[in-house]
């Protein structure tokens, strides 16, 4: 696995443990996206049915996260989730059309959306674990 891929997977896995306990749906989505990203990461060419399926799962997760972050009124996270959803749709499309170059571009864009959100809302704890730092602007 190449270095950027490892970083991407680490970010997702970190998001998994980081998801605050009071947001179980976020934990489930991080798990799902971690698994789907892991599948994509292993593919030399991110095309074909397996890549399409993984990209579709990611698209569903990002779509749900748009709704989640909207409830918390965190506009930047909503924006990153929307970017992730758009990138996942691009990736699914490119994988379906067997366009490996476009799929790589979309996968990188997808990773960037994850990274931006984790940078803003992920906090590293002692012992190497992470948690999501969510401070709603208004009560949920």
């Amino acid at each position, binding site marked *: 696995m190449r270095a950027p891929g490892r970083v991407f997977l680490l970010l997702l896995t970190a998001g998994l443990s980081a998801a605050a306990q009071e947001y179980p749906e976020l934990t489930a989505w991080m798990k799902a996206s971690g698994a789907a990203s892991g599948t994509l990461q292993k593919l030399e060419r991110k095309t074909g049915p397996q890549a399409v399926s993984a990209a*579709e799962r990611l698209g569903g997760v990002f779509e749900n996260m748009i709704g989640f972050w*909207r409830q918390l009124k965190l506009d930047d996270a909503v924006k990153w989730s929307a970017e992730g959803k*758009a990138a996942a*749709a691009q990736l699914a*499309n490119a994988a*379906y059309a067997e366009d490996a170059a476009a799929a790589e571009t979309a996968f990188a864009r997808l990773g960037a959306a994850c990274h931006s959100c984790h940078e803003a809302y992920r906090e590293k704890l002692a012992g190497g674990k992470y948690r999501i730092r969510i401070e709603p602007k208004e009560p949920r």
Partner: protein
Amino acid sequence: MAQLGTSRRHFFFGTLLSGAIPSGGFGSVSSLKLLGYKSPNEKLNIAAIGAGGKGYSDILGCQSENLVAMADPDEKRAARAFQQFPNVPKYKDFRQMFDKEGKRIDAVTVSTPDHMHGTASMWAMSRGKHVYCQKPLTRTVWEARQLTEGAEKYGVATQMGNQGYSNEGARQCCEILWSGAIGDVTEVHAWTNRPLKYWPQGPEVVPAEAAVPPTLDWDIWLGIAEMRPYSPAYLPLTWRGFPDFGCGAIGDMACHILGTPNMALRLTAPLSVECIRQEGKSKYTFPKSAVIRFDFPARGSMPPVKVFWHDGLERQPEFEGVPPGELLGDSDVNGSLFLGTKGMVTTGCYGERTRLVPASKMLDYKLPDPVLTRSPGHYRDWIRACKGGDPACSNFSVAGPFVQWMLLGVIAMKFEGRLDWDARNMRFPNNPAANQYLRPHFRKGWKFV
């Protein structure tokens, strides 16, 4: 039941909890309990009508509540649920279950084959039980209309099991369309790969008679349907292909795939329906594949719209204006496409992964602000309604009219040419022969309520 911003029950109970109503006598917690209301912290006592297959997953979907009884005439199919809940009373016939356990039951899940949805739901509602009924709500138009009226009459909380109605993506789709992003929607296509690989339909299917397995009560399984010899061709699951028991691929999947179009386009009764193509016609089952067209009139500011249903597809359908290689719907050949005067939108099977077409348009697209409330989840939505919360999103006042128009497509497969639809009088004025399929025949010994 009308969709209210705040339900009367919710308001009433909430007012009580806030101390606005005296704590004794009418309006007290004890008197409300006698009326069947539960606080959000109390658990519902739920009975399962149908415990195998989808029935099992419906039981798991309500795991936050108490499971107090199960009814299923097929012990083999229900074995997993029966073993997992050994102390829960089990019945073959839901009528006996109501006789014996009725006082303990607050609500039921109905997960039988399609032909028993209507009767089981009406039995429950008329006894004051809340109902979560699998899709399609009923097998016939008349039953769907009866359940719609029954839910209001008996004042119970209801939900049809088309979980896509609760999806974030389905609601994003509505908001995209309502924002005018693709202009006026004048045509919709919805498609599925079913029945392929799931259950057989077509001329090669012949229900050969066989001995009834000892684990099956065939008489109870048949329920309201006419008596006939048992055949392993009928079950499990394969009943979907037989018109006396199921509704074919459209009955299985249209409540999902056409759910978002129904919600977003505020579809009501169509003017007409026509099966414009079918392959693999059969004496016993629905055809191998079919294309059905529904024509809807203008609704408010929305123009008339043509809705096409395609089933039995092996690959994604092609449409003019869609770039070659573009993925529409889901890659497993289930999805929908909205054609507007300014663009296109596609969704997956359950309304999820909503996106503009081509998908590259999403990169620069800003989603409109939400105008719809979001669901806590399809089961939770219903459970909340059972405890006095707002009506669930696919309650029978919503699901009933939806299923009524969808079921017209099932009848259209039996006839050549267009069937005009007179919704008010519930009949096809240009084809009296088609009217016989609007309501079920009840076998002697069975009644609807």
